[in-house]
């Protein structure tokens, strides 16, 4: 292991349990020499416990290991040494604390405080020690006449300098800063941060920087561990993690930072949305049209390879029926079957092979087919038409489609025009508003719905900066849950149009969502590959939502003609 020389610390499977409470669970990481590792999280997240376990200020649970690359003995196992054996190594590892008021003994002079580590480790005689203390005062930019004064005579920032001098007098390699600048005014904080950075360069220090201020962590650290409930939920290069947070908890932390720009409104994410989606089925080309049925479970189509499948609570997948590729949307029909949209909109009764046409392709309008659909409480079907296929290369220039409503008697009409790439559709809880994704414009439209099913002119409800809106579902509280294609997850949009949360999945191409399960409390999230041949990265995820979904009504449209399969 040649590159081990660059490392100063190897932490493996570190856990700490206090009575019944698990404060730290299975933490592993490497730390490079002269790096600065940030550890962030809320109080109770385990970040201080982690720091203390590393330094053996407290003993971790059995099983975890902490290896330290010491100057004296090379790699040593901090976690298995006895406390007496640790003493000489403590010179190489030091800690600077948060509170500059309580961490300095008020009855000791500054000289005694800074000198004490040398006394404990029995280094040098009195004159040599005084010389070292004087050097340290210069290093932390405190005047020499501080020597005989007591901590109370110093400001918070000056006290923190005293604490840093005490930590550095033994020439440590690893310094743990536990909220070292948290209690300081911003200007003093800047001075201490600059000092720590200067000292790192001159003394080749490695820092573990435990902090809750993410702006400070981003400024000073190379790498970061994000902790929640004793677990490292995300780690990596600090800029990458903060710019591309993969986990909901990281996003929650970042969204809560008040921006110093009054034009950037703080929009903290919903704390209830912290769990991660669980995969339940995979190996499909492009999963679309998810629809929940109490008997079948979640049904979905594979746009690329064809077929309609169901997956139950035990993650068992069954084919529902065979079908050619290209089904973009599905809904339950009152006659016991599925309304499917593709080249046309048709009804497939369960157990029958033939399809019954509900709405044919409209070549005069330049339509090549249909995409997502939804139903209103009367049983009408709303479905958008496509000017070219969003998935298959049909050689056509992208062009706008329309939004159709199919009435109960089977007659259809256009209720909205100029939809660049029609996608998810869903009604608000009172049924008076219809939401509609236009993926090519990266917008969600909002229409007021008239009693006869007509739509008033649309307004832009929400615009996406990253990726495009795809399939959507509406929850009981009126929030809109939108698959964010390209951004790898589901955006939760408040009825006021503001994004409230984001649920990430491990693949970028998130295609649609649907509420299902008991009480419609499970959000099913489906995904696809990018349409590449043979790529079967599409799958289904489920996620316990903090709200119930709205049931999507069954379609009651009367079929007008029969089609052979």
């Amino acid at each position: 292991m040649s590159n081990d020389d660059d490392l100063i610390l190897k932490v493996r499977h570190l856990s700490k349990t206090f009575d019944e409470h698990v404060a730290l669970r299975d933490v592993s990481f490497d730390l490079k020499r002269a790096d600065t590792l940030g550890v962030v999280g809320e109080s109770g997240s385990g970040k201080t416990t982690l720091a203390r376990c590393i330094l053996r200020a407290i003993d971790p649970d059995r099983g975890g290991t902490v290896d330290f690359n010491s100057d004296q003995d090379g790699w040593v196992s901090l976690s298995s040494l006895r406390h007496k054996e640790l003493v000489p190594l403590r010179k190489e590892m030091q800690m600077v604390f948060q509170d500059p008021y309580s961490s300095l003994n008020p009855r000791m002079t500054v000289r005694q405080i800074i000198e004490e580590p040398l006394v404990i480790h029995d280094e040098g005689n009195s004159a040599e020690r005084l010389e070292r203390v004087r050097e340290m005062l210069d290093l932390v930019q405190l005047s020499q006449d501080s020597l005989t004064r007591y901590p109370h005579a110093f400001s918070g920032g000056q006290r923190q300098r005293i604490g840093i001098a005490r930590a550095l007098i033994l020439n440590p390699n690893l310094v743990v800063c536990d909220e070292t600048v948290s209690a300081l005014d911003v200007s003093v904080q800047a001075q201490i941060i600059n000092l720590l950075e200067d000292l790192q360069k001159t003394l080749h220090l490695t820092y573990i920087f435990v902090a809750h201020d993410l702006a400070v962590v981003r400024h000073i650290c190379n790498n970061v561990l994000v902790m929640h409930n004793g677990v490292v939920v995300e780690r990596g290069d600090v800029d990458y993690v903060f710019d591309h947070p993969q986990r909901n908890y990281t996003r929650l932390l970042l969204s809560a930072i008040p921006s110093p720009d009054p034009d950037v409104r703080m929009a903290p994410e919903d704390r209830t949305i912290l769990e991660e989606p669980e995969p339940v089925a995979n190996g499909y080309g492009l999963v679309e049209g998810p629809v929940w049925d109490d008997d079948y479970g979640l049904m979905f189509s594979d746009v690329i390879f064809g077929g309609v499948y169901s997956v139950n609570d035990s993650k068992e997948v069954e084919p529902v029926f065979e079908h050619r590729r290209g089904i973009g949307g599905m809904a339950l029909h009152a006659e016991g079957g599925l309304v499917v949209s593709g080249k046309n909109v048709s009804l497939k009764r369960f157990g029958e092979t033939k399809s019954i046409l509900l709405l044919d392709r409209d070549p005069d309008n330049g339509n090549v087919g249909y995409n997502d659909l939804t139903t209103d409480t009367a049983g009408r079907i709303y479905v958008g038409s496509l000017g070219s296929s969003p998935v298959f290369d049909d050689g056509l220039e992208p062009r706008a489609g329309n939004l159709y409503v199919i009435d109960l008697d089977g007659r259809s009409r256009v209720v909205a025009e100029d939809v660049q790439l029609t996608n998810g559709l869903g009604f608000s809880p009172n049924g008076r508003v219809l939401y509609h994704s236009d993926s090519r414009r990266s917008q969600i439209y909002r229409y007021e719905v008239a009693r006869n099913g007509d739509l008033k002119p649309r307004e832009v409800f929400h615009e996406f900066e990253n990726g495009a809106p795809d399939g959507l579902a509406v929850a009981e509280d009126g929030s809109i849950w939108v698959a964010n294609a390209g951004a790898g997850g589901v955006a939760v949009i408040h009825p006021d149009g503001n994004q409230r949360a984001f649920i990430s999945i491990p693949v970028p191409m998130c295609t649609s969502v649907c509420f299902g399960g008991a009480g419609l409390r499970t959000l099913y999230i489906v995904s696809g590959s990018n349409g590449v041949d043979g790529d079967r990265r599409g799958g289904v995820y489920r996620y316990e939502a903090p709200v119930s979904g709205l049931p999507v009504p069954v379609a009651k449209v009367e079929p007008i003609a029969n089609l052979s399969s």
Partner: protein
Amino acid sequence: MMSDNILEIRNLGVRFRTDTGITNALNDVNFDVPRGKVTAIVGESGSGKSVTANCIMRLLQPPGEIVTGSIQFNPSRTESFDVVAIGERDPRIYDLHGGLISMVFQEPMTALSPVYRVGNQVAEAILCHRDVSKDAAMVEAHDMLRRVGIPDIDTRIQMYPFEFSGGMRQRVVIAMALVCNPEVLICDEPTTALDVTIQAEILTLIKDLQEELSNSIIFITHDIGIVAQIADYVVVMYQGRVLEIGTVRQVLKDPLHPYTKGLLAAIPGNVPKNVRLSTIATAVGDADITTPFPLKEVGEGRLVSLP
């Protein structure tokens, strides 16, 4: 335009007489608190922001004393009075504390009694200022605790503060502070002791309640991010003086005083990585920030202490 202020502070001077001499904690402090808005007082430790708040509440303790100036409460109304001028035994002092003006502090446990149930403490604030029955006060306390977002109130109302998290305690303190619908709510660093996530919740709560109850808020903080998110107007203080006043956009986007510029430059998020952080001293440079130039008006409601 006729300005409608809930407080007008004029020439306020405070000194502390100690064994080692006299310290002037406030010098010629002048600013207005507009009605129904959030005014942030921002500054470092020792800038005088908390002393100013204590003067408004008449909570200044010896050796501190107000030596000059006035704090006119409700200046445009008939019931207007000068907070500084009223006597110790004036009944309006009692009205000030929690009735007309109330305060939320940094550490919620300083405002809560550890030995009384949460519901009783909120109800007591009502009974102090209004002539209602105990039962009616409990009903109102219940309602207020619901409005500040305490979950499971029927159980929680019977609990003691130590059974609450820091964020929940601060919600209780906010309920106590608002239950008598004061004209002015003074928040003195109410989120400094809280995690950033809980801080965001409390800031959102304060802002939402302010919009709902339309009272006036003085928000004291050293965190520019909080100022940007919550304030309508900003008063920048330094060494007991007011250096700059304006709307939040004016002060944060177009600061005029070198000290304010320095304060903004010292925020870690505002500079690229690997660039040394400015301290206020380096950002201010040779500019004179210690001479007490009187505030001059450079636009409507825009004041700055420059020669």
